[in-house]
């Protein structure tokens, strides 16, 4: 297990790495990367898992010019170059799934198998209805109800966090807003570029996900040449956090 800070262009990015074998990138969602989450070692038992913190998340820098998921996708292609990784599998959760999809459209030949976990990034529904509910106009206590199957297991108690942890939490929240604000949670061009993707792609959705609907995932999966969908029981938007064992089994079986 190691934690590095590397430079992608002029941007310092924090990277957590664990395990050995064929590399798999793990791209976190809006909550940031937490190495203590149990799915990480469960995947690292079989594979070398490389988990960067996106610019503006964790301890990664956020340069002034960075404001778009597309920017992050370019950086991570550079990360693969720097690590000498010609070809990798990739797991992307939520906003990380969006970054993954952007990377796939840019360099489809560099990816083997792909897992998209409750991904956002496309707009499929009508103009007068949001595809993803607006978390920024919701009463704050309502948001965890969409994220978790059982929100009572994930109480937010700032008094249990150090100032540094709380700062990271707040900064992650701010950076998420920067990246997903407008267009909300999507890139209008992405659906028109996904035809380039050749990777076998597994979509995973928690059955109680209140943000990413089953219909949305079905529509998203149809944009990929080779895809299938798995639903995780008793999980919401973050099945890797709520059901790490079931999640890791699905992922490990798929990645082989």
């Amino acid at each position, binding site marked *: 297990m190691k934690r590095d800070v590397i430079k992608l262009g002029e941007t310092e990015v924090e990277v957590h790495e664990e395990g050995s074998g064929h590399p798999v990138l793990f791209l976190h969602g809006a909550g940031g990367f937490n190495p203590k989450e149990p799915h990480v070692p469960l995947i690292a038992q079989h594979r070398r898992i490389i988990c960067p913190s996106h610019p503006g998340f964790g301890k990664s820098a956020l340069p*002034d*010019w960075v*404001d778009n998921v597309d920017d992050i996708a370019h950086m991570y292609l550079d990360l693969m170059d720097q690590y000498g990784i010609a070809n990798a599998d990739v797991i992307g959760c939520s906003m990380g799934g969006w970054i993954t999809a952007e990377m796939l459209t840019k360099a489809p030949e560099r990816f083997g198998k792909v897992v998209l976990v409750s991904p956002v990034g496309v707009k499929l529904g009508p103009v007068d209805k949001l595809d993803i509910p607006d978390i*920024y*106009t*919701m*009463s*704050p206590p309502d948001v965890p109800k969409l994220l978790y199957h059982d929100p009572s297991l994930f109480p937010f108690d*700032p008094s249990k966090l150090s*100032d540094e942890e*709380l*700062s990271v939490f*707040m*900064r992650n*929240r*701010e*950076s*998420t*807003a*920067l990246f997903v*604000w*407008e267009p909300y949670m999507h890139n209008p061009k992405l659906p028109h570029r996904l035809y380039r993707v050749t990777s076998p792609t597994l979509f995973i959705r928690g059955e109680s996900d209140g943000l990413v609907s089953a219909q949305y995932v079905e529509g998203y999966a149809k944009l990929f040449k080779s895809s299938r969908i798995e639903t995780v029981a008793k999980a919401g938007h973050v099945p890797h956090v709520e059901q790490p064992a079931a999640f890791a089994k699905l992922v490990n079986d798929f990645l082989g």
Partner: protein
Amino acid sequence: MQAWHFSETAYPYLPPADSYPSIRVSLPNKHYDPEKGAALYDRYLKEWQIAEEEGLNIMLNEHHQTATCVDPAAPLMLAALARLTSKARLLILGNPAANRRQPVRIAEEMALIDVLSRGRLEAGFVRGVPYEISPANSNPVRMNERFWESINLIVRAWTNHDGPVSHEGRFFHHRNINIWPRVYQTPHPPVWVSTTSAGGARQVGEKGYVQATFLTGYQATRKIYDSYRAGWRASGFGNDVPIDRLAYAAIVYVGKTEEEAYRGAEKLLWYVTANKVAPQFANPPGYVPVEGNVAMMRGASHPLSEFAKGASVEAAIKAGFLFAGTADQVYEQFKRHYGYVGGYGHLLLMGQAGFLEHDDTVAGIRNFARDVYPRIKAEFPDTTISGTFADVPPEPPSHALLSRPASMGVPVLDARPMTPLGAARGA
């Protein structure tokens, strides 16, 4: 000393506050009756005209999707005022520059009003309160950077007279900037910026623009003005900071009697107490810096939200954001505040809010204009240098305090969950 009558053109005819989660952003406009609204506009415009007759200047501002300020396009209201008035300076405070996509359009609107009013425009800019983010669909992150790029671009558009110039910035792009009409004033209308933070004030000082602060009381106002002066001096404008660079907005009500004053002041506090805002609109991510959010998580709160929990005329006067009483009392309260903070050249009077009816509003304007304004104009001239402090405590003198008259019943203020209000959170 220049005094400005400020009204938010509120729509007060609302259902009970406990029937809606937020007076801002999400309150359905089915609660707005256009007939009543039209009558209110007539009335508020008339009050600004009366303020002008009484020798005051005029100030207005802009908010969106809210009953607290039904002026979502302040330049339109200002254009009407430009034609309804002929003497008063016209201050818009301000244009929400970080929330508007086309700064050159703002430059054009302001130029049009400057010409329409023959050079009476004072062009203010506000970063905008957090609840403006959602109505504008504006990204709350990097607002300050966007704000200043917009202002700089607007000033450039005003001062360019030799055909198209271009701007390729971080947030805005224009390849052919060449506005018609040009501004009436030379080199351009006075620029005002509101901020309630010391860091923000320093930036305003560095530009030399007029700095306005809202309801920041004694200590915070002093810090903000100090910071402004530091910025001013750092930019090499000289050691002396003219008094007309600084403005303070207070809720003000002057009565003929203490009882009259108390009644009027209590109604004006609607401005603070009616500001029920759902938390998701009051603090979108990125609006407050990370350190500020951490402090809030650790229990820090905004002084005004603390105040609103137990709002009273007495407490607001003590805090220095309400000047209310008889002419003598208001004069004393003002003088103490002025002396403690080191002076300012503009008093922005929030003289109308909520259920303060027309006649009471007019009486408040007239009492101030006739019985207080001449004294403070004479005693605090526009030629003063700012930053001279009176050796006084940060509270009004005890003999100038106003207390609830025995003849009055229970307070009309009710207990509502509150969040910091209006421009108080800008920039």
